[in-house]
Structure formats: structure tokens, C-alpha cells
């Protein structure tokens, strides 16, 4: 029943070749980047990656060649990289299977899975390329055990005959990885700020790994149950991992590391530079502690969120400008 793991143990125990995998967070916010790096280090591959709105979490895994099929709705480190470059490259070069949904559809598919629905009927995507084109053909889908055989089905609305609706399959997620502000020994999680689709992933996934800024006692996290959103029995592994979302944001804790994202933008332009990035920031640092040391204490300190804002801003300057 012990759920507190070292990152490497959690990843090796719960993440396997060919898994249907999904990440919490939103593009450059609360992304489990340290966990993604550990997966790359350990070598798991052939993932079906389905992650809602993603950024470098997906892009790194694609760039490292670990993604067999990518279920996309939006992939960008917005504000720095408008289209994630390894993602883009892989599709332009035909290196991965990929499928497109709208973001609304993608998050409803996660939500439908978490609600235990057999599928999700919607009124969107009609009249567009999202229904005209299947990224992954029915034939390819039938070869991949963990993918639904159909991207979607179109049916007449049985309650409103004559009106077409789109039926979305619900994903069967093997493993979800979330980064949260606080978790307790038994896996109870507290997410500060928007939960995005994280709670859906925790419920819908067969296994859920949570990395957290603060690891606290079960008693402490229960003092304010209204602030908690994931019960411990939805979580298989809890990893205490301060700055585990770097370079993305973590509301109330730290801001994005913009220079890092700019560096990533450059590094992800070519496979060669990207491989060097992986060598420098994933393989050679050995683990998350090595990564944090390489970043340096001052840099991390300088990302710290300002209480009252929840993000980082230069208060000294503000006071002077004041």
C-alpha cells in the first residue's frame, strides 16, 4: 500500500512500452516535464500519447522517438514556439501516426472516460476536416490493440431524428502522469488553480503517477478537504519532486522559465540540436536533482511566484516604478 516512490522507481514500475499514456496540465502550465525526462532516460517507447493541450511534454517524447501514435488537439509552447517543432517535424516527415480532434472533443473524451460513459455524443467537428479525414486509418487502428477501431462514428440523434451527431470513443488510458502542488503519503492530491483535465485522467487511467511540489502527511491534507480534488485510491505512485514542472508554470509556486523555453525553441529546430538538448538536459544530468543543479539555485529562486499574484514578477522593479 506504500505509494511514495522515487521518480525512477515509479516510472519503471508503471510506464511500459506500448502504453496508452496521457499527461496533465495545459501547454506550458503544470506539465510533468521531470517525469517525461525520466521516461526518456529509461527508454520506454511505442507510446500512444493522448494529452489534450500539450507543449514540450509531448514534443520531447515525440522528438526522442518514443511515440508511435499521437492523438493531437493542440501542441505548442505558446508564446515562444507557436507550433511545437519536433511534433511538426514528425508529422511533416511522416514519422508517426497521428490523429486530430478539436480540444473540446479531446477533453470530453477524457471526461467521458472518467465518467465511465461508453462513448461521448457531441455536436461538434461536423462539416470540417476533423470528420473528413482520419489521421489513423481504420486498418491501422485495427492493428493497434489499444486504439479504438474508429476515430468517431456519425449517427442520427435518436432523440432528435434528422440531426447528425458525432460519437467519440473514450480512451482506455494505461498510465497518466500529473504534476500537482501538493500530495500526501496516501496519494490524496491538492491542485491549486485550474485543475484542467487532471482529475479526469486520475480517475480514467489504470495507473496514475503524481509528482508533487510538496509531500505532506495524510492528516495535514485533510485539514481542508474542500481544497483537495483527487482521492488517494486514484493514485498509484506519489513522487516528491520540487520544480517537477520546470520549465512550465506551477500556480502559486513558480513561473515558466522563459529563457529555457527560448533555448528549447532553438534546440528543437533540428534533430541534431534536439539530441544535444536531450544529452545536456536529460541523459547527462542523470536525474531530477542533477537537472536542478544544472539549472542552478539562483535561476530557480528567480522563478518563484509572488504571493498575491501566483506568478513571478519583478516586485523590486514594480516597487521602484510604483
Amino acid at each position, binding site marked *: 500500500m506504500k505509494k511514495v516512490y522515487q521518480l525512477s522507481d515509479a516510472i519503471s514500475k508503471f510506464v511500459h512500452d506500448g502504453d496508452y499514456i496521457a499527461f496533465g496540465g495545459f501547454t506550458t502550465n503544470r506539465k510533468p516535464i521531470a517525469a517525461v525526462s525520466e521516461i526518456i532516460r529509461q527508454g520506454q517507447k511505442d507510446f500512444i500519447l493522448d494529452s489534450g493541450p500539450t507543449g514540450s511534454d509531448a514534443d520531447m517524447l515525440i522528438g526522442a522517438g518514443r511515440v508511435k501514435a499521437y492523438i493531437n488537439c493542440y501542441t505548442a509552447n505558446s508564446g515562444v514556439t507557436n*507550433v511545437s517543432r519536433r511534433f511538426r517535424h514528425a508529422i511533416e516527415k511522416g514519422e508517426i501516426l497521428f490523429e486530430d480532434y*478539436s*480540444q473540446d472533443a479531446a477533453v470530453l473524451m477524457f471526461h467521458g472516460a472518467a465518467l465511465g460513459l461508453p462513448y461521448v455524443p457531441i455536436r461538434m467537428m*461536423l*462539416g470540417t476536416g476533423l470528420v473528413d479525414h482520419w489521421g489513423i486509418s481504420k486498418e491501422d487502428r485495427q492493428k493497434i490493440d489499444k486504439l479504438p477501431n474508429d476515430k468517431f462514428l456519425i449517427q442520427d440523434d435518436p432523440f432528435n431524428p434528422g440531426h447528425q451527431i458525432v460519437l467519440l470513443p473514450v480512451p482506455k488510458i494505461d498510465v497518466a502522469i500529473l504534476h500537482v502542488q501538493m500530495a500526501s503519503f496516501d496519494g490524496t492530491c491538492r491542485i491549486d488553480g485550474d485543475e484542467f483535465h487532471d482529475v*479526469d485522467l486520475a480517475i480514467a487511467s489504470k495507473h496514475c503517477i503524481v509528482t508533487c511540489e510538496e509531500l505532506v502527511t495524510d492528516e495535514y491534507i485533510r485539514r481542508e478537504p474542500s481544497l483537495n480534488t483527487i482521492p488517494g485510491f486514484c493514485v498509484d505512485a506519489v513522487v516528491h519532486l520540487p520544480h517537477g514542472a520546470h520549465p512550465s508554470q506551477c500556480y502559486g509556486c513558480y513561473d515558466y522559465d522563459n529563457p529555457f523555453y527560448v533555448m528549447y525553441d532553438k534546440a528543437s529546430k533540428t534533430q541534431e540540436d534536439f539530441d544535444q538538448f536531450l544529452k545536456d538536459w536529460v541523459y547527462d544530468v542523470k536525474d531530477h536533482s542533477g537537472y536542478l543543479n544544472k539549472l542552478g539555485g539562483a535561476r530557480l529562486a528567480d522563478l518563484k511566484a509572488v504571493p498575491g499574484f501566483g506568478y513571478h*514578477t519583478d516586485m523590486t522593479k514594480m516597487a521602484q516604478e510604483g
Partner: protein
Amino acid sequence: MADYTNYTNREMQAISIAKSISDGQIAIVGTGLPLIGAALAKRIYAPNCTLIVESGLMDCAPIEVPRSVGDIRLMAHCAVQWPNVRYVGFQANEWLHDTSRMVAFIGGAQIDAYGNVNSTCIGDYHNPVTRFTGSGGANGIATFVNTIIMMQHEKRRFMDKIDYVTSAGWIDGPDGRAKVGLPANRGPQMVVTDRGIMKFDEQTKRMYLYGYYETSSPEDIIENTGFEIDVSKAIKIDPPTPDIIKIIREEIDPKQAFIKVPQ
């Protein structure tokens, strides 16, 4: 003293966006120009409008300019931090309840004469020359909400046939949306570019030139539009007053995150 008469076409775009929001409306914005435009609307033209983003953050009033719709700069200064699916449901319910208080801003790489927009890929979907992010929230928005589309006005972007329809416009005419099963009482209202403002004919649902900026002209629009466009009703749009430009530069985007001030 700063010169506020040397306005740019990007500033004109922001102002056009701002003016398209009515007071009391709920505007679905992204980052970039729509956010600047909506902030300007709230400051000048529509003080009671509210801003929401597709990540689920409701009634946003950021102090610092956010880089993405999930940015904690939006999260810190909003009324409610909804999970994404709640936003999705709210958006659909505004249509189900037949309200008309929403307006949304979307962008894209290609657009056709009926306002169908491509933000997925250039070239073949399976073997694209250029791949973009994909839909994000745009497809859902274009399903349920009246949209204002922001585009760079170039011939290669305004096309007779776009490579992929990410977000439905009027499809192929007045019956287009109903035919494919989309809400027929929603659709694109306006296209705001760096050259002017396009609207859609009420009968044909085809794009026409509503107005051009001082720096453009009907001929310039025709030249930079890849499909036939009616310019017969076009008006010249008045330049902005210096006080509006001053507000944009001094208050709305002082760090020039999205709009560069001319040297």
C-alpha cells in the same frame, strides 16, 4: 513627446477587434491581438464585457500579458478557474439557450470565401508541407459561437479552396451549416486583417469587403485576396484618434508583447 499619429495596421486590427465587442458581451479570446483588442474594448468601448479563455478561465482581467490561454497570469486574475470541460459545456449551452451574448476571436493560416478556416496544415493532411498546432478550441468555438476571424491578408491565405477545414464557417453558402449538421444561427461575422474588414453577405454568406484601412484600398484588397471579392460596398475606415493609440501603447501593451511601436 511620443507620436501617437503614426498608427500601424496591427493597431488598426486591435481597434477593429475592440469595436466588434458589444457592451455586456462575453468574449472568447486567445492571446495576442484578440486579447489586446478585448482589453481595449473593456477600457473604452464595452466596459462591461467579460473575457473568457478556452482553457476554462472565466472573466479574466490579467495585469501582465499572458503568453497562452492557460497562463497563470490569466488564472491569477479571473473570477472562476473552470476545468476545460465546463467551458466546453458553457459554450454549447449558450447556443442551446439561444442567447446572443458571446463573441469569439479565432485565427488561422488559410480562409475561404465562406469563412472556413484552416489551422491544421498546408498541403495534404497526411503529408503536409507545413503542419500547425491543430484545432485547439477553435472548432468548438466555430460550432457554437459567432466568430470574428483574424488573418494576415495575403493571396496565399485567402483561397478558393483551403487545404483543410479546421473550423467551419458558412461551409458553402446559406444552407451550408444546416446541411452538415451545425448550428445554422451561428457563424463567422467578420474577418479582420491588416488591410481591412470583411463581412459576409446576408444572402449568399460570401465574404465581401466592408471597409479598408487608410493604408489599403479596394484594389489592394482584391490583389491580396485569392478569391473573387465584392468591394462595391466598401468604405474607408477612419484612422484611430491619437488618444486610442496612446492607450494601446501606454496602458494595454506597454511592453510591446504583441504590438510593436514603429521606430
